[in-house]
């Protein structure tokens, strides 16, 4: 019989080795699929690099994937640090987008700086409230936040659908179910594809880093996540801490709704998230909930996303093949986490050791 036991803490050298091995293995396995899709794997992988860094325009596209993913991951991280499993980033994202759109509809004539500020505040609040609901029930009645936040995603999606197909449907779109585009004074300024949200993201990264490592509340969130007993024993107000963490977590995810509507899509729609709210969970987790690694990993994921969409057009391969490659790489990287922390032992050996 074989069973699994936990390893000691892995060394940095082992960590790097195992991760590199995982990526190499993933590329090898993906090659099989690529060959079946009648493409040359090496060319294709070079194509991914080309698609991400080939020229300024493509690089801007990569960053456009990275910014929302990064900020969403930061949001998810704050909640996860407290062991509050917020898997509702997707919903908070959508609600934030609704908040930004609402501002545009109510005050269509605000000057650009005011507009951006108001949109930011509204999208933050909308996202925060969306997470505050499950957080309140968790703090008060001990409900399970995983299911609660997950289901809140579908409610948010349904609200957006209702807005898009009915309440906010643009009468000038010839019957097309779409919400009117933002006016020019509500679009984030951009220079050759790099828009203002990048500046926001940089500020947020710095803030998040100091918040988690050098603020009382950040410290309390970490303590609460590690052990509720210890938190109680230190006199930390558990309910208050949960609420604050939820506000920040949901708010950050909500802000992304503004980045996406005002920065990239120019309008609210049901497809606006592109599933990034879920990808962010993987990014935050793979980064060990540490801000510097979140920056690094959201970049890596952005490369996968942008590279994947580029090779579809450049190599004329089906979109599903690009998705499969992404999935395989992800699968191997996640699998390598297991290899980092556990190893297999046969029963005979353990008995000798004991």
């Amino acid at each position, binding site marked *: 019989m074989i069973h699994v036991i936990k390893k000691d803490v892995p060394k940095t050298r082992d960590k790097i080795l195992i991760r590199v091995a995982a990526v190499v293995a993933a590329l090898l396995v993906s090659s099989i699929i690529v060959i079946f899709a009648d493409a040359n794997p090496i060319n294709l992988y070079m194509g991914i690099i080309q698609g991400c860094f080939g020229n300024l325009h493509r690089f801007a596209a990569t960053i456009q994937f990275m910014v929302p993913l990064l900020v969403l991951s930061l949001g998810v991280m704050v909640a996860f640090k407290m062991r509050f499993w917020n898997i509702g980033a997707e919903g908070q994202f959508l609600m934030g987008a609704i908040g930004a759109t609402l501002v545009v509809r109510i005050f269509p004539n605000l000057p650009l700086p005011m507009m951006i500020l108001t949109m930011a505040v509204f999208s933050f609040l909308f996202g925060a409230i969306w997470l505050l609901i499950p957080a309140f029930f968790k703090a008060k009645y001990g409900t399970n936040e995983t299911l609660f936040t997950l289901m809140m995603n579908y409610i948010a999606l349904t609200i957006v659908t209702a807005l898009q197909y009915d309440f906010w449907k643009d009468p000038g779109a010839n019957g097309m179910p779409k919400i009117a585009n933002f006016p020019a004074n509500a679009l984030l300024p951009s220079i050759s594809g790099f828009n203002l949200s990048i500046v926001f993201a940089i500020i947020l990264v710095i803030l998040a880093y100091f918040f988690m490592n*050098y*603020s*009382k509340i950040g410290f309390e969130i*970490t303590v609460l996540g*590690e*052990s509720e*007993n*210890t938190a*109680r*024993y230190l006199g930390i107000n558990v309910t208050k801490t949960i609420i604050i963490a939820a506000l920040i977590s949901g708010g950050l995810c909500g802000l992304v709704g503004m980045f996406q509507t005002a920065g990239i899509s120019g309008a609210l729609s049901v497809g606006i998230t592109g599933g990034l709210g879920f990808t962010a969970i993987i990014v935050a987790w793979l980064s060990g909930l540490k801000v510097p690694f979140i920056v690094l990993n959201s970049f890596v994921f952005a490369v996968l996303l942008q590279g994947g969409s580029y090779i579809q057009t450049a190599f004329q391969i089906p979109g599903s093949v690009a998705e499969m490659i992404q999935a395989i790489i992800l699968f191997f990287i996640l699998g390598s986490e297991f290899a980092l922390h556990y190893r297999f032992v046969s029963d005979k050996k353990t008995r000798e050791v004991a």
Partner: protein
Amino acid sequence: MNSDYVVKMENITKVFGKVKALDHVEFSLKKGEIHAILGENGAGKSSLMNVLNGIYVPDQGRIEVKSQTVTIHSPKDALELGIGMLPQHYKLVDVFSALENVAAGSRKTTPFLNKKKILDEMGKLINQLGMDIDPNKKVYAMSVAEKQSLEIFKVLYRGADILILDEPTAVLTPQEIKNLFQIIRKMVEVGCSVIIITHKLDEVMEISDRITIMRKGTTIETVNKKDTNPEALAGMMVGDVMELNVPWVEVTRGEKCLEVKNITAIDKNKVPVLNNISFDLYAGEILGVAGIAGSGQKELCEGIAGLYPIKSGEIIFDHTNIIGKNPEDINKMGISLSFVPEDRLGMGLVSSMDIIDNVLLKDYKNTKGMGISRVISRGKAKALVEKLNVSTPTIENHAVSLLSGGNIQKVLLGREIELEPRLMLTAYATRGLDVRSSQIIYDLLNIEKKKMIPILYIGEDLDVLMSLCDRIVVLCEGKVTGIVNPRKTTKEAIGLLMSGVTEEGKEK
């Protein structure tokens, strides 16, 4: 001769890491007998039974069941041999009825539930044993005793004729215990053999035929009930007083610092966990608290620290009643709690943080503003590591969970002492430590005592309690059964108090 025994365990040894949980243990069970295993916590009772039930595989030794040498790899193997163990925590499906719980997982059931057939079989068995089970009652509507009967029934229904009951009476009322004992006697009548793990002497004397006493992972003796008495059993259970190098420091005690008056607390199931407890604690005194695990020590500690709700009574500290104050305020008054739970890191320290951050835990609120600064804590952590000789590669970026148990406890206790508390509550401070590390902890406590700090020391090891403490409060099932001077009493007397026998040994 051999066929009389349904179970024979010889030379059983099981090592966990460096700890010998079982050290050449001998045990045998005769057919149709009720055999009690008696011992303090950590004596190895449950470990031994887990070996018999296939949860642990012994490193050494031979098990013979019904005259055949066997190796038991899992509870399933055990059940095939007719061995069934009643789990301490019940594993029942709340929304299922008794019948469905019995049927679930039973190999006798067909893919489609034949309720009538099971009902018939259940009825027969229920009558035989005189059990009070309604097959259609849902588990969530059952009392603890009913759930227990159902668990026993489940094991029997699956064909076990050797039954292991692990502290079955801990959760029951006296009346329910009586019923349980009746069921046990009926089971023996129908041909079962029963092993019952307990530390309650009176129950042992009432129910068992033979008694095996265990202490510190070894069997001390197996005796027939009719040849023994509670005093002798208590003596064997606690052992002889060992010569320990835990010097009792004579300090003339100062004024009264803490007065606990008639406090009572109840748990979730409305069972009183603290029952009318009163004692005083003086400056320059180490007041020990002895008792079988789960006699209310944890609740007492947490109650004083403001973490466990006290229903009635008074705790007077600094001329004020601190009941109802929140933990933070109590902490500010100078009451420090260092509680070492079974998993050591559950409360007080954050395992994934380094020493600096763990020191910071108690300091971060003292700085103004929103931010935290690690400057002061770094200094304190450094001083702590040097002073207490904590062996750690670094104080930064090295999670305390990576340290050895002794060093973790040094950090915990050292931090509390560093805060110059006015009252120290410490529970299980030497839990899991080797002799040398324990020594350091005792010395630390004695130094504090000399500084006239009142200390409440909750301990497990009677030898240590007796040589370290000035007085010992003995708890049994949430009640104080005695407050004794360890230099004027015997270990056996305390052992009896711990088991709830209160006639002798009380302080005058």
